[in-house]
Structure formats: C-alpha cells, structure tokens
C-alpha cells in the first residue's frame, strides 16, 4: 500500500469512523426513542414509499444482495450489517454507492432521487425488524428435529430410563401432552417440565443433628451455613450449619439426570426423543 493512501486512511479514521463525508447531512427523525439502537429508533417512510422501494429492490438489487438483503449468489454484501446501510439516514449514503458504485458493485444511473429514497426506506424497514443482539429479522424454516431411530431409542430407554420411568405410567401420552418437539426433548433431558432444581421436582432432605436426631422433609434452602425444610406435616424447620454440621443428606430425584448429561451422546438424545414421540 502506498504511503499517501495510508496517511489518508489514517486521517479519515482518526476523526470518527469510516463514515462517508456528506455536504448536507439529513436530519434523522426519531419515532421510538426508547429503542436500543438507531435502526429501531428511527421513523420509517410511509408504507407506499417502502412498497415502491421493495419493488425497485427486488427488480434491481435482489440478484446480488439477496431477497432477504443478507447477500446473494452474485457476491453482493449483506446489507443488514453493512456500514453504508447502518450510517444511512435517508438514502444519502446508500445513494452514493448506487450512483457511484463500490468495489465490484456497478454504477446504477437509472434511478431518480425518489427511487433511491424509496430503496433506502425499504432497506431500513427490513433492518427495523432485526431482533436483539445483532440477529437477523425473523426467519421461518420448517426444521425437523426428529432424526433419531425410535427403535434404538426404545432400547436406550429400557436400559437407562426404565428404572424410574414408564411409558405406560408417568410418561404415558407424553407426546400428546407435550406436542412441541423441541420442548419435549428439552423437558426429558432436563428431567421435568420445569428446569432441574427450580421447583419442578422436589428434593427431600434428612438433617442429622449432633445428638443423632433426624429431621426429614422437603428441602427449602441449602448453603454452607444453613439448611431449611418443611416436614410432612407442614412444619418449617431450619438449622445453622458450621463445618458440615449438622449432617445434611439430600435425595435429589434429578441427580441421575444431572449425571446423565455428561454421559448422554447426542445420538442417544435424538433416538430417545424419536421413541418418546411414538408415545401418544
């Protein structure tokens, strides 16, 4: 790289960022001040302008930049994370690239200022729909997570799960009760409809005092300094703990599930899910 270009780049980058110089910067109109980023704060042009922009985009831009603006087969960039789009207010930056070209992008000189503003408005309307943490606008695929072998899943179930569970007992009709495949799989892996350890399944506890007395009940709270429980008759009891005394023995029905997470292969998970999906 020659030194003059380098110096120019340094100068450009030293004040703010690679943002195209503009003689007259349009004012940005804010419609949703409480939105996190400018692309969701900004006001959008009227619906008819956006519709016109969409038509122009899908005819002229789609081939390279994709129907969803995320880049296309012809190598056009992803407009939803493009500097030019993100800094654009009303077509001034986008228009500059359209009318002057950039990199491998050819010059388009067939658009009026209104056309360019409409294309920019359409692009901003899609960017407006982006979700949090940099995500794209919502995309909808029909994905099937049921790739497992139900017969293999049944064998795994009989071997590893049948000690505690039965498809004619606690899991009868499980696929009907949990119709969503994702939730079904997440639920059985975690060991309950609610997350493990958050009240879905009750842990019981036996506290043995130094005098040898034992108190058993449903565990309420437990740390290195304290344990509390509710006995079968509903009585609340708590104990201070010091140096592991009094002794606390937990019976966590999910403990086997917790151990299982380190042993389960993903193929086992998919197989068992396929099997449980047959338990209507």
């Amino acid at each position, binding site marked *: *790289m020659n030194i003059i270009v*380098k110096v120019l*780049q*340094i100068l450009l*980058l*030293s004040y*703010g*960022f690679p*943002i195209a110089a503009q003689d007259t910067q349009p004012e940005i109109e*804010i419609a949703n*001040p*409480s939105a*996190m*980023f*400018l692309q969701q704060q900004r006001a959008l042009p009227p619906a008819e302008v956006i519709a016109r922009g969409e038509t122009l985009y899908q005819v002229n831009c789609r081939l390279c930049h*994709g129907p969803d603006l*995320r*880049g296309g087969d012809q190598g056009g960039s*992803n407009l939803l*994370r493009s500097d030019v789009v*993100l*800094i654009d207010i009303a077509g001034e930056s986008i228009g500059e690239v359209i009318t002057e070209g950039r990199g491998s992008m050819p010059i388009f000189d067939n658009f009026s200022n209104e056309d360019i503003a409409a294309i920019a408005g359409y692009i901003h309307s899609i960017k407006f729909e*982006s*979700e*949090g*943490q*940099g*995500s*794209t606008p919502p*995309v909808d*695929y029909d*994905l099937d*997570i*049921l*790739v*497992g072998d139900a017969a293999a899943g049944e064998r795994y179930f009989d071997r590893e799960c049948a000690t505690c569970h039965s498809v004619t007992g606690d899991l009868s009709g499980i696929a009907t009760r949990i119709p969503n495949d*994702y939730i079904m*799989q*997440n639920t059985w*892996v*975690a060991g309950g409809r609610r*997350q*493990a*350890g958050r009240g879905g399944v009750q842990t019981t506890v036996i506290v043995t005092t130094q005098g040898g007395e034992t108190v058993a009940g449903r565990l309420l709270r*437990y*740390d*290195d*300094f304290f344990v509390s429980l509710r006995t079968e008759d509903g009585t609340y009891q708590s104990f201070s703990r010091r140096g592991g005394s009094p002794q*606390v023995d*937990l019976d966590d029905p*999910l403990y086997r*599930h*917790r*151990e299982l*997470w*380190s042993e*389960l292969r*993903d193929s086992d*998970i*998919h197989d068992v899910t396929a099997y449980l999906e047959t338990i209507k």
Partner: protein
Amino acid sequence: MRYLALFIINIIVPITLIGQEVVVDPDDLANVLDGDWDTYSGDYSGQRYSNLDQVHKENVSDLTLAWTTELNFNIRRGNIDGTGIITKMGGEGRGDIDIRSGSIKGSILEVNGVLYVTAPDHVWAMDARDGSEIWHYHWETRGGTHIANRGVAIWNDSVIFETPDNYLVSLNAHTGEENWHSEIAPFELQYFSTMAPITIRDRVIVGTGNDLDQPGFLQAFDAETGTLVWRFYTVPMSEDDPGIETWPNLDAASHGGGNAWVPGVYDPETDLYIFGTGNPTPGYTGVARRGDNLFTCSLVAVNVTTGELEWYFQTSPHDTHDWDSAQTPILIDGVIDGKPRKLVSTAARNGFFFTVDRVTGEHILTKKYSRTANWESHVRETGEPEPNPDKEALIPGTLVSPVEGGVANWQPPAFNPEYGLFYTQENNGFNMLYLSDPDPRGSMGLGGKIRAEVGSIDSAFQAIDYRTGEAVWRHEWPGGGGVNAGVLTTSTGLVFTGDGRNNLVAFDGSDGNLLWHSRIGNISNAPQTYMVDGRQYLLVAVRERLFAYVMY
C-alpha cells in the same frame, strides 16, 4: 493497515488547577495494591491481591458492617432532596431516554477516601467512610445496550469512563464537572461500550462491545485531551493483515467480532497491555467463517506505545458458542521447571485454564478446569483446544457444556503469589442448542440458534496451581448450581467471593476452609478492600446497593 499509530501533536496547553491536590499520579498506578484501589484490578497485575493485613484469618469473623447505601439515580436539578447534590449533566442524547440498568457490575475505585461508583450513564463520588454522596454525574444517552458499566479510570485529577452510546467522558474528580468527551465507536454501527478504561502514563486504554458482526478493536486516547492515539483491530481489516489466512475472506474477517470489552492487564517492564478478546461473529453459526478466526477468543499483547501486536495465543479457535475469552488475565512472576518465568494465566469462559509466557507468548500450559465442558475434541500440540463440530448448534439439538455464560465470565479471578494459587469460580451447566437458521451464509450476531437451559451440576470454587492447572483445593457449592461472583485475595491468605446462595463468603486461601459469611444477597461485582483513617474496609455491591465492612 492493521495497526494505526497516530501521533497527534498536542497543542492544547494543560490547565493546572491551583490548590487542588492531584488525585492520582499516573506513575503510582503501577504500584502494588495496598491502601487505595486506583485502577480496575487494584493494580496493573490483575491479581486482586491486597497487601492490607488488618483483616486476617483469625479475626475475619469480627468484620462489622460500617455502612450500606443504595445508589441514587434521581436526576437532581435543584436542592430538593436537601443533600445539596445537583446532578451534573452531559451527553449527546436528546434527553428522552432513561434506561435505568442499575446493577454495579464492575470495579469501584477508591482514592484518598473517595469512592467512584458507576452504573450505565451514571457516576457517583461517595465518601468511603460512610457512603455519603459527594457528586453525581448523568450522561443523557443516545441509546445502546445498557448491560453494564465496569467502572472509571483515574488520571491525575480526572475520572474517565465509557458510556453505552460509545463516548469516553472525562470528569473533574473533585467536582464531577465534565472536562471533555470523545466518540470512541460509532453508535450507528451498534457498538456499545462498558469497559472500565485503563490509564497508563498519559494514555487511556479503551475497549468496546458489539453484537452486530462489526470488528472489535482496542484504542488508546490521550488522557488530557481525549484525542485518539492508536487503534488496534482484533480481526483483519485488509488482505495484508496478519491472521487473514484464518478466515475464508475479508468480508468475514472484518465482520468477525473479537471485541475487547473487559479490562486487561499491563506489564510495565515490557510496555505490553495484555487482554482477552471476545467471540467471533456471527456467534453461533460459523459456516461462513471457517478457520481459526484470529484474533478472536485470544490472549493478545499490544505495545502501549505503538499500538502494535507483540504476541497472541488463541484460547478458543473458531468458537461457535458465544464463549468470549475476554476475562481479565493475571500476571504471575513464577517458576516453571526450576526457572523463573514472567507469565500470564487466564481461566477462560470455555472451561480451560492457560498459562503463557507474557514476554513471548510461548504456550506453557492448557488444562481443563471444568468437570463438564464437552465441546472440544482434543487439545492441539500447540495448546489450543480443538472444537468438536458435533457440539455446535445443530438442527436436531446438541447437549453442550458449559452454558452460554461459560465456566467463568467477566467477574474477575484473583491470585495469591505467596501460595501460587489462582482463584476462580467453576460454573458447570448444560444447554440444549439447536440450529434455527441453517442458511449457508450464516446468521448474524447471536442469532440463528435456539437455546434451552438444562441445568447445572458440581459447580465449585477452585484454587488452581498456575504451574499445573490442577486444583489444589476445590469447594463444591451445595446443590451444584453455578455462581457468578468475582474474587479478592489478601496477603493474609484470605479469599473473598460470593457463593451464589446470597452469601458473601471468606475462605482460608490455603485450604478452602470457610471462615466467615454475610447473607446480603448475591454480589454483583468482585469484593474490594481499601484503607481509610487507618482502618481496612471490605467493599462489595449487591445490584444497586453497596456494603462496606470494616475492622474496628
């Protein structure tokens, strides 16, 4: 064009405030951590090892609550609440946004009996003796991700902090009046800034965050004027840049993330600032960024004078789980194979502990410190864990450990040089991860996946031998659930942290015995300590409330 070294002639004559003592001479920031806590980690080493010794193993249970106070977010335009505090206002926003996200999730600096406390868009100076407010500054924001502020830096008479909408703001430390503010990243590109700046000589080291596939960078600004000195991109920005061979093309590289959002450490002997970089982007869909993706998820050493890369070691090649390696590393003067070595260690979010030569970047040790992390196929001969592609987000679902937040996160670890022990939390949990956007172009940001929490098991607190990576002692938290709490250690062998069960706890750092606890709620930062009027205080935050304990 990877390294931008800008030598800007300073033509602004410094104005000296007569009669005001200098709060912190920048030369003193290199000192060991004792009475004052004057930079993010207390000193440049990242050890969080205080030489204060009034509190020790025999008397720690005598710690007394000296004061507690809740942050006052109210914008006080007149003396209506009787405190005499009128909020100093600044900002480039229109005044129509009030995003209150109040948790204290960073360091509080303490100098000469004054605390500097932050939340996004807010700075308070408080009396370290009783928590009284001295001044309050509010920044009117343009918006942005208000997830946290990690604290101020101090330079002479100014305190300097970052805003979520990417300004570096310098305030008069005595009054809270603004000295200057400078834009450090474009809000338009969805950057957001949380890092506690680090002052080194007359420079302010600044980092930023971004979730929209923008390139990460570290910058140095002039502490006096707020002008940019250099900018170091953590990903290749031209075809000639180092690391470009680890990306399929420049478009992927220059949208590749690697943000510098947690403060690093500084080695004055080599003039190297050493920090961890964030995850590559798009975060969960690596299909359009095949390769190791340098210098994301790496330990990176940058020369503070020139802004140029000195060395790097990648702790997570081609991450696809949002496991930043941004954790504050720790400088260790240690002994390896009988020879004294200058080292740096880090316990990464991905569940691996690393020790590296901090002068050369030579790899010394890789050791898994999580009992459950299951995402790697093996460790390369060169020390980097190799990701197993079968543990990426896939359409039918994969069971992955650790969880998105990782085995450790930004909450800082600590190191006791006398014991040679590195103290860190060990969060062990599992997620189900599904690919929801199988587009061959990759998704964007942290999108393209569905994540379901499964649960946690065997989470613990560890004291790791930096030479072996083995836990010398390990305290398993009751019930096995994970903890996000930073760590403080002292020359008297104490370790302070949170237990995730609403207790602030003190361990005997040599053997892991619990010595003291106080049930104040889950701490939202790391415990800190300082000395005022000859008394040692222990300071910690629980969301919007500060607790200061003292040894009388």
